[in-house]
């Protein structure tokens, strides 16, 4: 009975979405307020019904109602409670419903926040948002319905269970975060289309859009970082980023979104670049839909390997529809958006932002090119060329280093034109610091990109340090504050600027971490009890192999002691595991092995151990050890990154004046 209600809810939502859009259009034509009110109520109901449908599916998952195909496919009776809930976004139809759910929550917030204040453009905002909802409702109703009954002529006693790879705390929150970001870009997009359609772009609009952008960008960033973290902890290949199509899919809107966050500052402060910003919002939103398409259509298969399905053509048509409609509108509004001001000088902050934008877009294009290259090469040359991580690294490392350089240069440039004196005053010390770093690494015989990356990091950190130093010093003299209060108030008085700097410091730390990748080393070997192996000055001794049965799996555990090879001093014990999930299943094909890693992590490096396989007959454990320098810097950098964004996002206290 309950699945039927779920199905009805999405049917009804589909119909009402249509009605709502039509009512809004009629209101725009004849201005009858009752039409607007009905349209809004219909839109509200669409969102509420979508949320209801999601709650129903969750309830079905939690109560293991195997009459529903989705529940039988992604959960089993043994699946722990929390993963029964996360199974909501484990499969195709569920994740589409989850997309809709997220969008509906955003739609409700948008309605309640802006109904009064943005009354003029709200009809258009609702038309755009409801159209996106409509698209997903069509998919859920006709292509991938999560409420489909199980197709079996017997009563299903137990479900297939959730992929053990997905049974991980990070994996439980990575997709929702990513979705909050992906889906969230719908809101600024809707506001932009509405502003263009109504020719109304006021200061309040600016503030709303900027806050939304920053928030959804943060969610997308956290989603991407968690994805990398999950891959590192769980997948066992020792890395956090593989340039996999699905990863690229989330990285592309992040790049354009980041560009937008910068260039929108120019619009806010100087009322310039409006056409460009509109184009960026359109591109970013399109990339979000395109990203969902890449993950969900099976066009590109990857570690995320989702099935091929009929979703592809529908998604692509929607992507093209968005592009055509939005860019046509942009074309007809170009006079409305045109600005009287021009960029005056190369050495202005405006031009710094613009170059930053160009580099971000170019990087996005490079990623896009590599991602779709296999498809293009097959269409043009008839051979399918797969593009591996080395290609993406080769292309993107230099572009990334330019971005790193701009991170340091941009903030020190002055609006309109930077004078020579201020240029010299601001840049001398940072350049000297960069050069000293370069010299040190040169002497240490560390060269190439690594040298450039570390030197630029030193340069950027010095410029940011100086900014804080100058700000604090001036408060100390003018306000007579002690350094700590000055530091605190400096940030509080100008949240977006200093929040931005904190984000930049986080990015630099992440770059240092990325650079550590070039010092990675690894070794695979088999060990009997009591045997040792060496790698990078460490010895690895296997002192025991244990077996343990746990509620949902069976584990073999390799107990290893890591010691300094020269002094023999013990450093840490590592216990990587080889687990067999569904180990009680009578059919051996249904049992699934899984390697659980053990990582010893310090600021200097990670010692990463994987239990590859076990030869039970000869009692040999096959292990892989990786020494990954500076990986922790990536994670610490991302904490700062998130902190900085939160500082910028925190609503300012109401000023008295």
């Amino acid at each position, binding site marked *: 009975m309950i699945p039927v209600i779920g199905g009805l809810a999405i049917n009804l939502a589909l119909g009402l979405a249509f009605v709502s859009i039509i009512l809004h259009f009629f209101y725009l034509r004849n201005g009858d307020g009752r039409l607007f009110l009905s349209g809004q109520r219909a839109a509200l109901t669409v969102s509420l019904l979508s949320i209801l449908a999601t709650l129903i599916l969750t309830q079905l998952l939690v109560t293991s109602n195997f009459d529903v195909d989705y529940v039988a496919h992604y959960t089993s009776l043994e699946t722990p409670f929390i993963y029964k809930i996360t199974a909501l976004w*484990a*499969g195709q139809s569920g994740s589409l419903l989850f997309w809709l759910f997220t969008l509906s929550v955003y739609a409700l917030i948008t309605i309640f926040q802006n109904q009064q204040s943005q009354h003029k453009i709200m009809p258009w905002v609702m038309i755009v948002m409801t159209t996106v909802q409509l698209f997903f409702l069509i998919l859920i109703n006709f292509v991938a319905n999560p409420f489909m009954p199980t197709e079996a002529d017997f009563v299903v006693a137990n479900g297939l269970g959730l992929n053990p790879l997905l049974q991980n705390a990070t994996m439980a929150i990575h997709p929702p975060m990513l979705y909050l970001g992906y889906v969230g870009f719908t809101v600024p997009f809707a506001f932009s289309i509405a502003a263009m359609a109504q020719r109304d772009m006021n200061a309040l609009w600016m503030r709303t859009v900027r806050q939304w952008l920053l928030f959804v960008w943060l969610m997308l960033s956290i989603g991407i970082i968690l994805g990398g973290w999950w891959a590192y902890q769980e997948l066992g290949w020792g890395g956090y980023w593989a340039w996999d199509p699905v990863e690229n899919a989330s990285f592309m809107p992040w790049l354009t979104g980041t560009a937008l966050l910068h260039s929108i500052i120019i619009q806010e402060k100087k009322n310039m670049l409006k056409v460009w910003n509109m184009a960026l919002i359109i591109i970013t939103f399109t990339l979000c839909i395109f990203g969902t398409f890449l993950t969900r259509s099976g066009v590109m298969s990857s570690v995320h390997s989702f099935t091929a399905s009929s979703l592809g053509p529908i998604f692509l048509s929607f992507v093209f529809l968005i592009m055509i409609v939005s860019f046509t509108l942009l074309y007809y509004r170009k006079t409305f958006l045109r600005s009287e001001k021009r960029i005056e000088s190369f050495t202005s902050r405006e031009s710094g932002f613009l170059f930053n934008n160009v580099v971000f877009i170019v990087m996005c294009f490079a990623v896009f090119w590599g991602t779709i290259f296999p498809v293009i090469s097959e269409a043009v040359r008839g051979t399918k060329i797969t*593009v591996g991580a080395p290609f993406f690294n*080769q292309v993107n490392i230099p572009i990334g280093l330019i971005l790193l350089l701009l991170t340091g240069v941009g903030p020190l440039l002055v609006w309109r034109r930077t004078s020579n004196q201020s240029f010299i005053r601001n840049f001398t010390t940072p350049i000297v610091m960069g050069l000293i770093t370069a010299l040190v690494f040169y002497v240490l015989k560390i060269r190439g990109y690594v040298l450039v990356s570390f030197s630029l990091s030193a340069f950027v950190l010095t410029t940011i340090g100086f900014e804080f130093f100058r700000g604090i010093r001036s408060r100390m003299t003018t306000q007579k504050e002690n350094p700590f209060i000055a530091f605190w108030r400096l940030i509080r008085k100008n949240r977006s600027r200093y929040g931005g700097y904190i984000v930049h410091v986080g990015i630099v730390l992440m770059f240092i971490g990325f650079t550590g990748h070039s010092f990675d080393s690894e070794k695979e070997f088999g060990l009997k009890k009591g045997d040792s192996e060496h790698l990078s000055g460490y010895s690895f001794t296997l002192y025991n192999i244990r077996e343990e049965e746990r509620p949902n799996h069976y584990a073999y555990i390799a107990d290893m002691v890591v010691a300094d090879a020269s002094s023999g001093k013990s450093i840490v014990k590592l216990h990587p595991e080889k687990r067999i999930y569904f180990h009680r299943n009578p059919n051996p094909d249904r049992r699934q092995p899984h390697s659980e890693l053990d990582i010893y992590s310090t600021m200097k490096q990670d010692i990463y151990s994987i239990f590859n396989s076990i030869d039970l007959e000869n009692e040999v454990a096959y292990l892989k050890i990786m020494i990954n320098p500076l990986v922790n810097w990536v994670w610490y950098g991302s904490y700062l990154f998130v902190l900085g964004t939160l500082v910028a996002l925190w609503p300012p206290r109401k000023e008295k004046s």
Partner: protein
Amino acid sequence: MAGSSSILMNSKNKFYFAISGVIVVVIFWIWWASSNPADEQALVTFLSVEELIDDDHSDRVRLGGLVAEGSIELDNNNYMSCQFELQEGDYVLPVHYTGARPDLFKDGAEVIIEGMYVNGLFEADILQTKCASRYEGDLRDADSYNLDEVSI
């Protein structure tokens, strides 16, 4: 407008000029990197087993298929080394692989391999399994296996 005498030196044009310059340089860079891969693994041709056997490729290639039932044999001397048969449609290819075997590597698993084809034996150095298909629909058999679905 900037009060410059020459149209070319007009600041707006200068600006567009600089930005177009950046874009041209980068497009050239991407094009150059596409035709001069830094690493043999950067750009690899994806073939079907049929194409590999018929055309006798000697360069590094990537293949997809199923592990033939009962074909996995572990090396007696080296546990990390194994031999198996890759099946795609009607074609079967003997494969030798040394290295860590992924968790899902077993009879009937969908795999992607990368390496070189030498004297009738495919020497693979990369072996990846596709996520277990039992988590999305039912396992497919060798006949209905479709290369296009695993490709890339």
